[in-house]
């Protein structure tokens, strides 16, 4: 579940950090967008390759 992995990285990240997610789940793109929308993080780039998706996210965290 890509969101789980993304969240794990997010938990140990600081405001402004970049997270690169590699996912085989076809729902990764919309799910990450929804996830980012909810916490203010920004989806910088989405690259769809054969069988996997690479997504670059910039972390937005308050008070960190």
């Amino acid at each position, binding site marked *: *579940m890509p969101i789980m992995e*993304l*969240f794990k990285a997010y938990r140990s990240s600081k405001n402004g950090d970049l997270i690169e997610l590699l996912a085989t789940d076809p729902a990764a793109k919309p799910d990450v967008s*929804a996830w980012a929308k909810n916490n203010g993080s920004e989806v910088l780039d989405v690259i769809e390759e054969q069988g996997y998706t690479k997504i670059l996210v910039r972390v937005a965290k308050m008070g960190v």
Partner: protein
Amino acid sequence: MRTEEKGRLTSRLLVILSKGTMDMVYPALMIATTGATMGKEVHMFFTFWGMNAVNKKTVNSMKVASVGNPGLPMPNILGMIPGMTAMATKMMNGRMKKAKIQSIPEMFRMAKDLGVKLHACSTTMDVMGVPKESLIDEVDDVVGAATMLQLGEGGQIIFI
């Protein structure tokens, strides 16, 4: 309505689980844990057969119904044969493992780690004679419907 939590605005999610089969417990846990990763304040309320998911005696043996299950491609008359429930369950467990999805007890641990709050229904425990000691460690407390409704106040409520 959003609530203040640690100086940050969060939205609430309440998942009510009233069924005790694998096909019901998994979605409930998936929704709850995903909500938690999105920063929501998540509560799960286990009532009626949902109690099976938080009972130490049954959490490791959640099954797939082989009879009366319109989702399963098997006629009832076949599903009734002794051993069919076990077979359907084994098949589903195999698929979950292949898709690298955690087991139900593992998902409960993960839910807890993500900050999901688990609440057992006191009426159900009374009716079904479930003692507090039988509950899995991850359960936070035993409450009633009024508390549960309050936990869903202003947020999303999902009834399974």
